[in-house]
């Protein structure tokens, strides 16, 4: 009997692994989901006298996209964001993160802007409040100002369909 023990042990392990394949260890709830979006007031790119605050969006479902002119992956999702903006799917606010060389205004003038507002987070402090680790990162914030979704990395049609659309439907937007 003893000689079968390694096999029995292994079969039990395989059972756990098979189960484990359908669990996502990374699905640890982000501390921001379900919480009030951190408040801030920042000047807008191109118009330092105007400012933006999440409070301005009260009553609407909107999307906060953290991006930077020096970020290549942001350029990658830019085209898709333009489509979203043109179809008026959801208002997009583009938090311009750590743009030390102040390139955002010229760049958006050249390639087009999908954003309704571009607040300027020069020192990255608002980014820290939102737990931004790199660009691009995108948040969905609901009517009551509560963060409902966080996505790390560029958005494309697939991610949009799998992750964003169901959430927006749920929020009735």
């Amino acid at each position: 009997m003893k000689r079968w023990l390694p096999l029995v042990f292994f079969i039990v392990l395989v059972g756990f692994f098979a189960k484990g394949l359908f669990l996502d260890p990374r699905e640890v709830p982000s501390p921001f989901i379900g919480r009030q979006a951190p408040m801030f007031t920042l000047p807008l790119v191109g118009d330092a006298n105007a400012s933006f605050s999440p409070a301005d969006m009260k009553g609407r479902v909107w999307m906060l996209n953290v991006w930077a002119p020096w970020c290549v992956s942001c350029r990658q999702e830019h085209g898709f964001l333009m489509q979203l903006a043109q179809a008026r799917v959801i208002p997009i606010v583009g938090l311009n993160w750590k743009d030390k060389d102040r390139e955002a205004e010229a760049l958006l003038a050249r390639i087009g802007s999908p954003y309704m507002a571009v607040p300027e987070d020069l020192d990255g402090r608002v980014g820290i409040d939102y737990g931004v680790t790199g660009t691009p990162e995108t948040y969905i914030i609901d009517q009551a100002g509560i963060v409902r979704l966080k996505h790390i990395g560029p958005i494309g049609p697939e991610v949009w369909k799998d992750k964003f659309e169901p959430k927006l439907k749920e929020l009735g937007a």
Partner: protein
Amino acid sequence: MIPELGHFALILALLLALTQSILPLVGAHRGNLTLMGVARPAAQGQFVFTALAFACLAYSFLTNDFSVENVARNSFSQLPEVYRFTATWGSHEGSLLLWVLILAFWSTAVSVFSRHLPEDMAARVIGVMGLISVGFLAFLLTTSNPFERLLPAAMDGNDMNPLLQDWGMIIHPPMLYMGYVGFAVAFAFAIAALLSGKMDVAWARWSRPWTTVAWAFLTLGIVLGSWWAYRELGWGGWWFWDPTENASFMPWLAGTALIHSLAVTEKRGAFKAWTVLLALVAFSLSLLGTFLVRSGVLSSVHAFATDPARGAFILGFLAVVIGGSLVLYAWRAPKMITGSGFTWFSRESLLLANNVILIAALGSVLLGTLYPLFMDAMGLGKISVGPPYFNAVFVPVMVPALFLMAIGPLVRWKEASLPDVATRLKWALAVALAIGLLLPLVLDGFNPWASLGFFLATWITLAVLAGFADRLKYGQGSLMHKLSSLPRGFWGMQLAHFGMAVGIAGIAVVANYQSERDVRMEPGSYAELAGYTFIFRGTTEHEGPNYRAARGTLEVSQNGKPVATLHPEKRTYNAGGMGMTEAAVHPNIFRDVYVAMGEQLEGQNDAWTVRLFYKPFINWLWFGALFMVIGGFLAASDKRYRIALRSREVPKHLAAQGA
């Protein structure tokens, strides 16, 4: 065009791997020499085509072909050339291709260095290795094609993970895989022996050098990984009990047990079934490591691929390979009759104790690594198991093994006398106890953990010296002559054991006497740590090839004498905006002075948080591991394995002359 060529080469490699496995295995079963003869050329052909595929992928990376998805995801036009090359195995697909390439390399090595083996044995070994190649090539081609095109092509790549842009990472994966995959040879030998039903001691002798070489590579791979983490993660730590580290450490523990039990099987014919099982387990754990890292079953810092389809494929493959081999083992186990007996105090019994302890340690690591998965799978919540568990369980389990490893080499096979050994080692024990107890008192007051470490390091070192003294008592000629005529197997073992002692000393010192400080620094300010004075001279903007950095300047001095000027960096990589800390280290034999930039403080001119570390004896760890690696290669190159090789060739040569 080049990526398609690579894809095609990979398909041809799969076909050759099928040939390499099926024909020789059938031939060996039927005793058909023609079919068996296919094994070697098929294995070599498979290597050529796998290497071609790898070269094609490397070419795509080097030429920035962003129409290849793999390149677009993992490389970047501004990435320096050397990292574009290493990015070839920086991705999931690329690292699997490297895995397959190294497996093909080992198969080819076996095909070249197996002339002394009986034809059916060689055919079975190469055939079994071919089966493993088939599995991995099919996995690559069906779920992880590294040559997948991206239409339209990306403008630029997403960049390689900045953490991997370090030269430690250039050689770490190939070395680690040489070890992982090298255990496939021991596995194939064990399976071949089980298939043939001839469980004599010959297979132990044949697989011994292969196993030792694989073990040495794995040791090198693990220590390179640890060294990389130490320098690159900016925390000054060198081992994190991260699932991916454990995935490489578990095969190492099994492999260490295996090289010891192979010695018993070869010399005394004992532990046959156990040794076979260990050979199966060592490679199974390598496969398991691949599964754990590649499937995303466990979250980890470096598990960078999560895809259930891939996970399901590897799990299925794992079930077939490991499950199949364990069925074969259970079926053949009764055939394995253990050779001569031994008494409770003999080299056999000590090596058995070594094996039991190593396997218990392995079990503790396996349990800690998989525990979060068990809990999650049974719906008991998400937990993580961290260093406190591993330190509390693993260290005490290993202590007896480290104590016994000093005695083992000094004890005779079959039957030894305890009083005799005790007489020979009593001085060593007394000296080791004295050093263990007194050294911490001199350094910094009573410290049981430091005492334990110093005791074990001294004890093992003295036992190594006693081993040499034993061997040098007899024979004639000068000391140098006697030393150089000792067999390499002996040198290798003693060097590896000594390396362990050096490593333990390093761990004991660095774990108990390191110091660190987090300080706020602005230009002109200074901080002190462990007798060193650090003066901060501010930062300058620095433009790297694919990043921008704030580069700090710190002048380090001791007692007013300048020691070094260090330049730690805080980098921001252009492609993803990811921040990275590049630590600066001033090493010497007795300590590292290590500084890492923290964050820039708001509203102040060039004020930063800076992390200062004083790491005494940390380098002994790497030296100790290096001794083990060199010891392993020395032992594997021992003359007696080569004599076995020649004894078959000489008669053939003579026969040719006679004709």
